[in-house]
């Protein structure tokens, strides 16, 4: 059986910036309070047009679970690792708090979690996924911006979406090969 390769496909046209995904993530993963402490986020894009003809887009984001991980390369103690299914993880007991991975991440996806004493980041809610459930952010979204699935399964919804629609990734020039795809 082929190894799974998890990915998320986002249709940002549906995003209403309700922040339900960030709240769900914080609740599900016991993310501490505080401005700096979040595993996912929603970026407000620039306003388009002039009043009264205005428009705005929102771009949710989280750890890109990169195929070419700069964080994994720079971690001196292998606290950062990559599962076979592509989920990038952190072993808190090995983290020395050097924050090299935070400096190396092109997406500002990591933060230092004082409560666990280690760097923390989105793990696609691996504890839920391995039980057959969806990540909290995917599950809670009222407009279904995010679709989660296995890219190695050609019949999965993510595979079909990427086949049907043009899509982009964030900062492709970094060579990180992100596995968060944004439909254009």
């Amino acid at each position, binding site marked *: 059986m082929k190894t799974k390769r998890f990915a998320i496909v986002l249709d940002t046209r549906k995003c209403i910036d309700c922040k339900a995904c960030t709240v769900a993530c914080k609740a599900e993963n016991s993310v501490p309070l505080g401005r*700096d402490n979040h595993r996912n*986020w929603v*970026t*407000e894009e620039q306003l388009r047009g002039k009043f009264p003809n205005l428009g705005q887009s929102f771009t949710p*984001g989280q750890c890109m679970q990169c195929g070419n991980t*700069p964080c994994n*390369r*720079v*971690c*001196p*103690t*292998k*606290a950062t690792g990559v599962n076979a299914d592509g989920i990038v993880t952190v072993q808190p*007991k*090995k*983290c*020395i*708090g*050097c*924050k*090299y991975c*935070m*400096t*190396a*991440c*092109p*997406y*500002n996806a*990591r*933060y*230092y979690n*004082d409560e666990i*004493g280690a760097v923390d980041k989105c793990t696609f809610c691996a504890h839920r996924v391995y039980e057959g459930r969806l990540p909290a952010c995917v599950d809670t979204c009222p407009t279904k911006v995010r679709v989660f699935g296995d890219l190695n399964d050609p019949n999965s919804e993510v595979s079909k979406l990427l086949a049907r629609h043009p899509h982009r990734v964030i*900062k492709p020039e*970094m*060579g990180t090969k992100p596995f968060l795809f944004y439909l254009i």
Partner: protein
Amino acid sequence: MNVAARQQKDNMLLGMSGVGVIAGLLAAAATFAQGHSHAFNVTREIPWGVLVSAYEFLMILAAGLALLVSVGLSLKLEQYAELSRKALVFALASMAGGFFLIFMELDHPVRMLLFAVTSPNITSPLWWMGLFYGGMIAVILVQLFLLVRGVTLFRRVMGMAGVVATLMVLANMGSVLALLENRPFWSEAFVPVHFLISALITATSLGALLVFWERLRMESSVPLPEREFMVRAGRFLFFLLSALAFLIAGKLGSGLYAQPPGEFSALMTLLNGPLSLNFWLLEILVGLVLPLAILCNQWTRTPTGVVIAAALALIGSFFMRYDLVIAGQLVPMREGGLEKGEQLLSYFPSVVEFGLVVGSLGICLFLFILAEKFFAGRRKTS
């Protein structure tokens, strides 16, 4: 020689550095009490602050001193044996100050010692740092032994080993920044070369200051051999500062000409942004222009002039490290980290971070003076 006056000067410097050590210990206590996130002003977007830049300054100084001594040993420059011994002792003291800073910066330094051995990641420049530091310390200790005991055998070999060890340290320190593709301001060969030249500048400057301090302690005028050393050091410092100025001009030129995204924004933080005062006043004027002006002609390149230029160059070097580390992080990786209407992130060290930096400099000086008292005592009894 007035022994009492010499001891008084040593004790004065010991006292001053002791105050620094106490400040550092108080700051360390505050760090343990409050936790890093409250004691330091680093953030998710700017994870490395003044502790990292000051640590780099002290380690680069140590590597530079060890490199100059190693070159001297390789070339069998026996007339500098005593100064070489002092320089090596200062290098070890500087490393102690640097290790104090990095131990305070890391959230779990004990884990580092454990997992660097049991779970090494050889793709990480930070992992190699530990290995190369170990190599450099081992070489320094052997060189120190050979110099203190007056053993001339193996000096040349240890000199060459020292050159290799220190160049590995400097190249690796540069690669910690230079290998980060997401930080275009750091991501080029400029950084390791910059570190090498900075190491030689700080080491030469400190060498001149060590000679000056020794003369001040002895309350005598500078004898001819040391005058010649100071003038030579001044010429060498002029050459190094010119090379650094050329390197900085090249970096500015290439960044301003092509305006590559990320790098251009970081450059502008230095030229007319939040770091512009540091850059123009402390890096360029104090760290480059004034020393170059003093050292460029024989009328001002006197022992006194060289000491002034050396002190200025050291101050400039400290701020060069700070500006390099901070400018590379002020440009956000994504817009979410910015306050509304802002284009750049901001950072200023906290009181605790200041205290730790003062503490590290205090530890460096304190250990050096103590060591010199020890060596002076040994010379009296032997």
